[in-house]
């Protein structure tokens, strides 16, 4: 059956896939997707703790809401940066964005 370590292990696998995406992708939008997966993994961990460690702690749900807020913030600021980079350099490829200046 399912237990907390099982959920956390699935979360670890999802987090690892996100790490691979962040490190291996050259496009900024794809990197944002990797970060989304990493945050999704952390949400899965919280859901596991809520189910199998502290089922009666409603305050734990707040962590999921905070992580969802983080996901929205990361996407908002990330896309703003991507558009800014596109306006200045005409690219969203991270290999071409090696300087902060300009």
């Amino acid at each position, binding site marked *: 059956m399912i237990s907390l370590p099982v959920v*956390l292990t699935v979360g670890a696998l999802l987090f690892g896939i996100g790490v691979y995406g962040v490190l291996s992708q050259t496009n900024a939008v794809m990197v944002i997707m990797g970060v989304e997966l990493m945050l999704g993994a952390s949400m899965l961990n919280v859901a596991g703790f809520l189910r199998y460690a502290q*089922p009666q702690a409603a305050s734990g749900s707040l962590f999921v809401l905070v992580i969802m807020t983080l996901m929205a*913030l990361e996407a908002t600021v990330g896309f703003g940066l991507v558009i800014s980079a596109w306006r200045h350099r005409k690219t969203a490829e991270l290999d071409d964005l090696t300087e902060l200046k300009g």
Partner: protein
Amino acid sequence: MSDLATALVFWPAAAFMLVTALYVFRTSSMARAGLLLLAALGIEGLIFLALASEFLGVLLLLMMSGEMVIMVFFMVMFMADPGGLMGMDMTHDKRRSAGAAVAVTAALAALALATDWPAAVMDDGGRGSRGSGRDVQQIGFEIMGRSMFTFLFAGVTILFAMVGGILLAKEGGRLGLPTPASEPRDHGAQEA
């Protein structure tokens, strides 16, 4: 949901979620990558439902649906080959990235399996209060009670991020200075 039903939903959903998440970075099409990410996070919402976090699962599904639709637009806008028809390679350092990902996964999984986690404190037959509808009520009381400041702060932070994102993205940046992209692109053509 009983333990058996939870297992019957959890295992296939977890496998499908991991496969779709992996294929986000294996496909050459960003449009497909966005839809695969939507599928992965949507299935995560299903896992939330199986883990008796109904409110959070539905919230995740709603939020990810909106966010991924917007993200697909950005992908199509910023990719030279959004459909993946030209077979462009959008990766670098694949071997080292995979090594780092495997190392991180192994460390986290080892920590999860080796730690002696505390047993659940339950007083109502093993399910706690989750999945009975009371968790929604409890979250509501939590948000409007002692965690109200946290939630208010999150709302203000989102507002600042929205304003900051717009200022970053608008032409000329926050100072309104001209950017190279704002100059007429067909200048040479007009001269000719």
